[in-house]
């Protein structure tokens, strides 16, 4: 039936592929923490079995084991224990089944550190901040970087001579290092911006003007530290793509036809943009990762900070929850970009239409 709607067919096949990737990611999320001899799951098991913990910790860990279906339960939903008091493990395949089931239900368990807060709630609190910071930065950084890269390729000369090494330098700096530098320069030495946090410490999140302005004020430094590095990296890629496009036969032909410069510039920009879009799909994971670390530097109340706190406090449910969420959002971003390319690039589009034959 889908044969008659090649576009739908394309979206469905791509979606299916991403679902497969999602399953692989979930599998990794399940198995990777179980590698190593001293892996967290075994440690928790041992702790619960040994009874060496405080009562509070014991309760949390037992709840974790039950929630994730890592141990066999008896009729009263208590952990079944062997003779020496060690919990009886469920077979790995059952653990995996339980885990996948939980993921698909959207249940990510309960945090250790903020017991009995649900992981989902912690993430829910953090996610608006992360989206507010990362979505505009990545989109603007990408656009501005591409425009600058295209200009550098088209103009060459002095502009390129100054701009290109700067962009290379930006590309060479880790996101967080630049964040630290900006923080040191503009929050410590010359304190015109706040160093940490997403809003002033004495405020309570409300929709008031004072709060919003404080938010905006705290937004500036993290924004620029991600934005500039990202734009630099994109500009380099765009510059070489554009130089390539300028050498193609269709640009030559357009010049022979006497087509206006700005039209040719548009041809070049558009055609160089498509591979850059593919590039975006591939590098979006890296960008989000880098931006998360920047959030950590600025103690920005987003996902990065939640992840850092969880890593420092061995809060496994939260770590796993965050990594899963990041994976899912990266996959979604990729999926969107994929579909976008399908619509924007007639070469791919022709392939989609032809695939229905």
């Amino acid at each position, binding site marked *: 039936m889908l044969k008659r709607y090649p576009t739908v067919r394309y979206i469905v096949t791509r979606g299916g592929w991403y679902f497969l990737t999602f399953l692989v990611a979930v599998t990794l999320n399940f198995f*990777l923490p179980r590698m190593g001899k001293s*892996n967290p799951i075994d440690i928790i098991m041992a702790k619960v079995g040994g009874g060496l913990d405080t009562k509070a910790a014991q309760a949390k860990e037992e709840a974790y084991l039950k929630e994730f279906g890592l141990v066999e339960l008896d009729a009263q939903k208590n952990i079944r224990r062997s003779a020496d008091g060690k919990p009886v493990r469920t077979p790995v395949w059952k653990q995996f089944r339980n885990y996948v089931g939980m993921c698909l239900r959207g249940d990510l368990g309960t945090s250790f550190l903020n017991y009995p807060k649900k992981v989902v709630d912690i993430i829910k609190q953090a996610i608006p901040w992360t989206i507010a910071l990362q979505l505009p930065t990545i989109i603007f950084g990408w656009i501005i970087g591409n425009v600058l890269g295209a200009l550098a390729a088209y103009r*060459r000369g002095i502009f390129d001579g100054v701009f290109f090494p700067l962009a290379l330098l930006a590309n*060479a700096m880790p996101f*967080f290092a630049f964040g*630290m530098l900006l923080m040191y320069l503009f929050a*410590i030495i010359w304190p015109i911006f706040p160093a940490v946090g997403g809003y002033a410490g004495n405020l309570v999140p409300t929709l008031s003007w004072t709060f919003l302005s404080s938010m905006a004020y705290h937004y500036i430094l993290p924004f620029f530290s991600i934005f500039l590095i990202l734009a630099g990296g994109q500009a380099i890629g765009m510059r070489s793509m554009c130089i390539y496009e300028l050498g193609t036969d269709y640009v030559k032909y357009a010049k022979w036809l006497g087509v206006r410069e700005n039209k040719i510039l548009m041809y070049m920009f558009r055609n160089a943009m498509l591979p850059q879009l593919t590039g975006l799909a591939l590098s979006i994971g890296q960008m989000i990762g*880098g931006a*998360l670390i920047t959030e950590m530097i600025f103690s920005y109340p987003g996902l990065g900070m939640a992840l850092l706190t969880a890593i420092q406090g061995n809060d496994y449910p939260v770590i796993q929850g965050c*990594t899963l969420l990041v994976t899912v959002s990266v996959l979604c971003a990729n999926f969107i970009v994929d579909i976008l390319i399908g619509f924007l690039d007639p070469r791919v589009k022709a392939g989609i239409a032809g695939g229905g034959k």
Partner: protein
Amino acid sequence: MKLLLNLLKTPMFVIGTTIFFGTVLVALFAPMMYHVDIIARVGMPYMPPGKEHLLGTNHLGVDMMSLLIKGLGSSLYVGFLAGMIATVTGTLLGIYGGFKGGWQDDFITLITNLFLVIPTFVVLILISSSLKEGRSLALIAGIIGATAWTWSARAVRAQSASIKSRDHIALARVNGEGTLKIVVKQILPYLFSYVFMVFIMQTASGILSEACISMIGLGPYDTVSLGTILNEAMRNEALGDGAWWAFIPPMILITIIVFALNFINTSMEGVFNPRLRK
């Protein structure tokens, strides 16, 4: 050959290699000239740079210069090892897929694309946090390499698939050369400059990745790297105390190494890919 001469005429390449080999030389030979001790507390916490301690001390009173030299060595080592693992794995898979074709190629491409979209950052965190103990420098390099191979595999596959259609490969076959000999003599030389560029990029991104995971506190437990120095400085209020010598120098070192590698790569691209030349 001729191309090598062209490279040496490119100022970018010369600058890049000079800086890079400069840092390598420092990492290798500085310990012989400068007494490096990263455990001894030789002064007060956060002593500013001075005569006694060229770059001051850290929050524990350890000489920053020692830390930097040691950290530089570790970071280069991680980058090199990770780059090596990622490049070798990726190149082997890429050549195999591109040259073999058929379902083997389809399978490798599928796996590569699959792992390409799963963010490496996540995988790094998961593995690192599961290996709470025994997270040595080499292991971290291994983890980084194991997550980065996809990119090189994809790049190398595309290249080897395009070389495969060249007639000298058919001619080598009718000369009776075996597959291994064909790969070594007819394909690898063409890929060499390309693989080398991939290796440089992977080394650079290995150094950056190490800095990133060290920064979130999942770095090596047994030694210092530029990333762990930064992490320590961050955690111990170096910024607030205005102790710039605790974080600016490692930052500059990371940036300058990666910058030099980027420079080398861009200049090589310009020479090997004539279209980018002016």
